[in-house]
C-alpha cells in the first residue's frame, strides 16, 4: 500500500470515534500491537530523548526499502510510534522523505508532534527522514 493509502485507513479508524477517551483507547491498542524492538537496540545509541517520554528507533535498509522498529516508555507515545511505523516502514527513501504525515493532524493528534511538546515524536519523525536520506545516499 502507498503511504497515502495507509494514512487514509488510519484516519477512517479514528473518524468513527467521537470521544477523546475512545480515541486514546484505540491509540493504546495500537501501542500494544507494535512489534517489539530488539532489546539490543534499546540503548542510548538509539534513543531519541524527549522531555516527557523516551523513544528508541532502529532502522535498516533492505531491497531499496527502509525498515523501522521502535519503542517508547510511555504507552500513548508507543501508540503514535506504532502508527508512524505502519505508515513509513517498508517504504522507499523518496516516499519517506516526501511524506507530509498530515494524518496525525487529521486524526486530531497534531499536539503530539509539536516540537514544544518534547515527547520525542517530532524528533523521531525527523530522525526517520534522516535515515531515509542517508540510506538513499549510501545506495
Amino acid at each position, binding site marked *: 500500500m502507498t503511504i497515502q493509502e495507509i494514512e487514509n485507513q488510519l484516519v477512517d479508524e479514528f473518524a468513527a470515534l467521537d470521544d*477523546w477517551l475512545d480515541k486514546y*483507547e484505540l491509540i*493504546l491498542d495500537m501501542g500494544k500491537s507494535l512489534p517489539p524492538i530488539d532489546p539490543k537496540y534499546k540503548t542510548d545509541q538509539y534513543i531519541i530523548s524527549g522531555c*516527557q517520554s523516551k523513544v528508541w528507533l532502529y532502522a535498516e535498509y533492505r531491497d531499496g526499502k527502509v525498515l523501522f522498529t521502535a519503542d517508547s516508555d510511555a504507552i500513548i507515545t508507543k501508540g503514535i510510534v506504532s502508527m508512524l511505523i505502519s505508515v513509513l516502514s517498508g517504504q522507499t527513501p523518496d516516499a519517506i522523505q516526501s511524506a507530509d504525515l498530515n494524518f496525525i493532524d487529521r486524526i486530531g493528534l497534531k499536539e503530539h508532534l509539536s516540537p514544544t511538546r518534547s515527547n520525542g515524536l517530532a524528533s523521531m519523525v525527523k530522525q526517520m527522514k534522516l535515515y531515509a536520506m542517508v540510506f538513499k545516499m549510501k545506495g
Partner: protein
Amino acid sequence: MTLNIQNIRADFPILSRTIYKRPLIYFDNAATTQKPVQVIRAISNYYEHDNCNIHRGVHYLSMKATEAFEEARREIREFINAPNTQEVVFTKGASESLNLVASSFGKKFLKLGDEVITTIMEHHSNFVPWQIICEEKGAVLRIANILPNGELDFEHLKSLISDRTKIITLTHVSNVLGTINPIKEIIAFAHQHGIPVLVDGAQGVSHLRVDVTDLDCDFYCFSGHKMYGPMGIGVLYGKEKWLEELPPYQSGGEMVKDVSIERTTFNELPFKFEAGTPNVEGVMGLKAAVQYLKNLGMDNIRAYEDELLRHANEALSSIGGVRFFGTAPEKASLVSFLIGEIHPFDAGTIIDKMGIAVRTGHHCAQPLIDHFGIPGTVRASFAFYNTVDEIDRLAEAVKRVKTMFE
C-alpha cells in the same frame, strides 16, 4: 475568617471556560497562577490612562506613573516586611533574580576552591546559575540531600559547611515535593558561621506569609506570575549591605549616575539593579495581586489550602496503587504522584482530556527526579480558587487512568 470560594472564583474569568467541552479544572498553579480581574484591569488601566516612561521627564503623566511605580515598591516592601524600599529590586522574575545573585555574588566573592551549598530539590533556576558560576570561578557546588519523605536532610546540610563555604542557596518550598524548608532555622545556623543565605521563594510567597525581617534571610526571590500577578515581573529582596557590595548585573540606562567617555558611576539602590525601562505594566499588575492577597489574608489562604491538601491526600490514597513523592509534615498545597507503574506522560494526557490541567515530567528539577529513579511525576498544585469537588474529579480521572492502562 473563612474564604468565600464562590466569590473568589467569580474574580477569575478563566475559571469559567471549558476544555474539550468539560469545565476547566486548573491544577497547575505551581507552574503559573490565574489572574483576578483586579490584576487584569490594573494592566489595561495603566495602558489606557497612565502609560509613560518613568523616573524621567517633568510632565504630568511621567510624574504620576513614577509615583504609582514607587508606591508599588512600597506595597511589596510591606508585603514581605522588608526593612526598606531600596532593598526591593524589580526583576523579570525569580529566575532573573537568582541569576543576578549567582552572577554578581559569584563575580565578587567566589574564588578558586570556594564552596556553594545548595540542595537536591532545587528548581533548575536555583541550580544551573550556580553550576555555571562555580565552574567559571573554580568553586565547588555541594548538594544537600533529602530524607525519604522529601524533607531536607538538615544534618547533611550542616555537615557540608566548611571554612570555604561562601553562600547557601535553597528553596523555601519545593515545586515537586511541596516540602516547606525550615529556612529560619537554616538561616540562623548559617549566620552563626558567617554564611549568607539566598532563598528561592517562587513557591513560597503564594502559600505562606513571608517576613524577610523575621527570617533574616540575606536574599529572597520570587515571581509575580506564581502569586496571581502578571508574567515578566518579579522581585529580588536583598539586605542593603549585600546589594551595596554586589556589582551591577545588567547595565545601561537608569542604573547609572554619570556617564562619560572616561568612566561611569552607578546609581544608588535599588536602581543600580534596574537597567532599562522597567516592566511598569507588570509592576502595576503585581501591586494589584499583592493587594488581592492582602484582602484575603495569607493565613486564611494557608488554612484553606491545607484543607485542599488533606482532601487530596485522602482521595488519592484511597485509590490504591498511588505513590506519593513528598510527604513532609510541613507541606504546601501540591501533590506529586505516580499511579502504579503507569508513565506520568500517559496519565497526564488522559487527565488532560478530562478537562483537568496537571503537570507531568521532571518539573525543571531533573536532579531530584533522577534521585528517585523515575521518569517524572504527575503534579497537581492547588490554589485558593480550587475546590474539594475539583479534587474529587481528579480522583475519578486517576481511577480512569488506572483502568485504561492496567
